[in-house]
């Protein structure tokens, strides 16, 4: 069975998704255990694949037994190996953690919710594992469609935001599809490796250049790269909490992975970095994205909205890091895909727990939350510190690589933008901590009212235990990812970067 791990990690959730639908009509109690079992199996399979990749290098799986370019293949190397594990882990944890909210909110359509949830995860896993450019498109659409549905079920403006997301997402996917079509027109193949082999002869063709730009534009739209981010904050901020803690960490990150994959595997660095010399301008765009994202985050007082703008900035980190085109920058971008997934998950899950407890959604509603929900807030603090980039949380180490990449490339604008955004994040998060910690504040010295035991002054109203356990796990992961950053980079990321890149 080990040979089939890479297929299983997609097939198992897919098959179970349909079973969950059926279970939803027979007995709703089966939906959650089935889903959890499927995602657990997926997670184990992804770890298995990663272990195999680590041992034997690239793992290939030929669907229907046909080798590419005739058939579709799954191709897992070190790059998507770690992304797969990250997706599976976040999806599983989120499923476990948000169960109390989901069962309360979607009691009447539990089967549909979990089916869509698993299909979304399947789509993301499939995007990551596939070696076929067109198959990628189909899976992008799976992930997107289920995402629109899940986001559209949120309160307030969710349906409108989701519809706008649908428009933008469809345009992005269509642009990507056009790009693939141009490539197919030019080469006659759809397999990534085969494309890479057939492209160099026709690098000078206008077809290849337009295909490149179409793919890049489509992916930038899908990942919410400034200024194509307009759909992102609304969609993620208005999404129901259990969904936003799934899509916010994963969807944009997977799209960035796709960009890295397409640039490294299909077009190869020779074309992307050397022939086009696009790097400089892309990095400057990323600088603008980072700065703009940070300012936008400062300008809002809604918690989830602020977090989504941070994602806009973080997308800038990764795109910029990748387009620096040197070893440190690309390592940083790839490392940040994983790290950002973990830390975004952490803060969004904490935000979900907070919003579930108190109805408000602006940061001013968080008064006194440290006393009310100490564990949740502790997790939120860890996530925040990681986003700020305080060692030894993982956010620091990817930032480290990104900045050294910027220094190595002599791109001081990018370095400055990263530092600037760290400082803004510091302000953003401590603004929240301050409110949650100190308000309602009293103008007294000595605090005679509290009788010395402030901690027990307010009744603790924590999130459900299940959520807490998951949140704490996520927070611990942030430290683990940080402390093992060196091993992750040496063990996986360095194998991804072609030898030609210094």
């Amino acid at each position, binding site marked *: 069975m080990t040979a089939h791990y890479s297929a299983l990690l997609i097939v198992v959730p897919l098959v179970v998704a349909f079973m969950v639908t059926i279970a939803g009509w027979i007995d709703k109690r089966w939906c959650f255990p089935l889903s959890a079992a499927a995602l657990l199996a997926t997670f184990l399979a992804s770890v298995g694949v990663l272990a195999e990749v680590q041992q034997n290098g690239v793992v290939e799986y030929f669907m229907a037994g046909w080798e590419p370019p005739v058939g579709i293949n799954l191709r897992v190397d070190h790059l998507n190996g770690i992304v797969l594990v990250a997706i599976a882990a976040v999806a599983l944890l989120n499923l476990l953690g948000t169960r109390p909210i989901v069962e309360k909110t979607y009691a009447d359509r539990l089967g549909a919710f979990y089916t869509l949830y698993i299909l979304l995860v399947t789509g993301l896993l499939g995007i990551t594992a596939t070696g076929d450019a067109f198959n990628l498109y189909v899976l992008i659409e799976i992930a997107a469609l289920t995402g629109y549905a899940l986001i559209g079920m949120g309160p307030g403006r969710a349906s409108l935001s989701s*519809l706008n997301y*649908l*428009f933008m997402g469809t345009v992005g996917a269509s642009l990507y*599809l*056009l790009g693939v*079509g141009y490539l197919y027109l030019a080469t006659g193949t759809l397999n990534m490796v085969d494309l890479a082999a057939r492209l160099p002869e026709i690098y000078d063709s206008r077809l290849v250049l337009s295909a490149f730009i179409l793919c890049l534009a489509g992916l930038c739209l899908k990942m919410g790269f400034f200024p194509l981010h307009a759909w992102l904050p609304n969609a993620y901020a208005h999404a129901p909490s259990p969904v936003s803690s799934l899509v916010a960490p994963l969807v944009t990150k997977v799209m960035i992975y796709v960009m890295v994959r397409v640039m490294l595997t299909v077009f190869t660095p020779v074309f992307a970095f050397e022939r086009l010399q696009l790097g400089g301008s892309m990095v400057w765009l990323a600088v603008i994205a980072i700065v703009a994202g940070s300012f936008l985050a400062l300008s809002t007082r809604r918690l989830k909205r602020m977090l989504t703008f941070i994602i806009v900035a973080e997308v800038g980190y990764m795109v910029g890091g990748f387009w620096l085109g040197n070893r440190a920058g690309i390592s940083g971008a790839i490392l940040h895909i994983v790290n950002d997934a973990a830390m975004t998950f952490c803060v969004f899950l904490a935000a979900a727990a907070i919003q579930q407890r108190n109805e408000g959604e602006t940061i001013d509603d968080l008064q006194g939350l440290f006393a009310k929900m100490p564990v949740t807030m502790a997790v939120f603090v860890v996530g925040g510190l990681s986003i700020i980039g305080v060692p030894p949380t993982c956010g620091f180490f990817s930032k480290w690589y990104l900045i050294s990449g910027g220094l190595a490339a002599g791109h001081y604008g990018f370095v400055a933008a990263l530092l600037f955004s760290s400082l803004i994040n510091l302000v953003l998060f401590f603004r929240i901590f301050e409110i949650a910690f100190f308000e309602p504040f009293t103008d007294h010295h000595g605090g005679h009212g509290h009788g010395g035991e402030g901690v027990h002054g307010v009744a603790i109203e924590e999130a459900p235990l299940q959520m807490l356990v998951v949140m704490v796990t996520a927070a611990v992961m942030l430290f683990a990812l940080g402390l093992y950053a060196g091993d992750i980079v040496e063990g996986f990321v360095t194998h991804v970067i072609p030898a030609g890149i210094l």
Partner: protein
Amino acid sequence: MEAILSSFLTKYNYWVFIGLVMIGLYALIAKRNLVKKIIGMNIAQTAVILFYVSIGAKQGSTIPILDSSHGHDAHHAVQAIDYINPLPHVLMLTAIVVSVATLGVALALAIKVYQQYGTLEEDEIQAQIDKT
């Protein structure tokens, strides 16, 4: 001029597809009515389908369903040149399904928006949002 003209004559399918993409995109962005936007989106998607199907065309070939029907008498070899490229058709079957699915979800969301705001005009929806 002549070059453009000959380009048009030899590649008019592609010209049409680009035109359709542009029309669809324009509607998607400029129109303020959600259903019109959805229609624009669909036009753009259909244009992509036209593009792919055009790739598959081969002059002097027929549809890719083999003549020697029941396949058993394989003694007369199949000539690839006789049949058009099946792959784009396969891909477009997928793309058609995707566009139908997207359309379905888009309509469902539009209905939800209509239930919520009582209108499908973006300006009016925006006015309602600003009011609250």
